[in-house]
């Protein structure tokens, strides 16, 4: 490819696109709003936790309390997730070259995989443990034969809804784990592509 050909392609590539430019401004404004909001995520999380604790201390039990508790839980999870995502994004942006960038991305992906794997392993025993604790608490601190009690709970409406939710969480976590593994494979092939590119450049210059 000659330089004039390249120049033609560059002109073709740089053709302005009015519709895309308009959309871009909208996306930039949205990103700035999100960035501003997330800048206060640490404070928002602290506020939610302190507010939630005070509410739990002062409020009496009822449907409104349950609704508020669910809301607080969702807000806490969402804010924590957003903060983690921002931390991971910031850590990869600080890298100088592609090798360091890929290494940083691999570290983030591996940390995510560890977290997801841990939740898959820990969730079922934790659920059983929580159920047994609750039943033991209701029966004066002792459960002689937990099997039939757990079975009866699983057959109740509340038990079936809870089990369906736990199954969904496990399925979602398994899906996340598969996606992260795929991401790690992509990153590994990218690392090889950069290595090959560097070797080819070294070969041509040497």
């Amino acid at each position, binding site marked *: 490819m000659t330089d004039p050909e*390249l120049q033609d392609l*560059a002109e073709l590539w*740089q053709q302005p696109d009015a519709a895309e430019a308009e959309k*871009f401004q909208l996306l930039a*404004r949205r*990103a700035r709003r999100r960035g501003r909001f997330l800048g206060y995520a640490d404070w928002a999380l602290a506020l939610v936790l302190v507010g939630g604790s005070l509410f739990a201390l002062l409020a009496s039990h009822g449907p409104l309390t349950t609704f508020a508790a669910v809301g607080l839980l969702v807000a806490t999870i969402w804010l924590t997730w957003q903060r983690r995502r921002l931390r991971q994004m910031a850590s990869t942006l600080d890298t100088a070259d592609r090798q360091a960038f890929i290494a940083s991305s691999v570290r983030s992906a591996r940390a995510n995989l560890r977290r997801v794997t841990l939740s898959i392993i820990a969730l079922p025993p934790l659920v059983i443990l929580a159920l047994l604790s609750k039943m033991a608490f209701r029966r004066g601190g002792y459960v002689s034969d937990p099997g039939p009690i757990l079975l009866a709970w699983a057959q109740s409406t509340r038990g079936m809804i809870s089990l369906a939710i736990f199954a969904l969480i496990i399925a979602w976590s398994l899906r996340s784990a598969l996606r992260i593994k795929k991401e790690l494979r992509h990153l590994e092939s990218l690392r090889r592509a950069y290595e090959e590119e560097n070797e*080819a450049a070294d070969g041509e210059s040497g």
Partner: protein
Amino acid sequence: MAANGSKEQLFAQVSSSCTGLISRIALSYEADPSLRHELIQDIMLAIWLALKNYRGDASLKTFAASIAQKRCISHVSKRAREPRQVELPTDLASAALPPDEVALRNDQKRRLVDSIQQLPIPQREAIVLCFEGFSYGEMALILGVSTNAVMLRCQRAKTTLKSIMEGR
């Protein structure tokens, strides 16, 4: 703190002067318009976050291109499925041209974008920056390699691009 002006001013500057640059870098990695718009928003958020560390060592355009390329690589790595082949819009070229000229330019641009999207990522980064008019020195800064390595990578990218375009 950021070197030239406040974070808000710098962000406004990036938003107004790097519109085409960022959109086209995103286009070289993502053909699906809705996913591309998500990617652009992600890039702009990353720029917003990174601006606090901007010291003015490089131009704002170089800084924005560097962040955009990194976010695009992350996007490609996280993509669950292989990219869908999406037909590019029919109005890519300027409407000021005669209709037959517009159709021809559209077809050429579509072929060019498709071919760029098929390049290996290291070469894609280099050729896109080359098309965007960055000097080899600026490209070396963005890619984190030596100027010599950038020149060789651009040369390889041009050769691969040519073979893809001729093979289509």
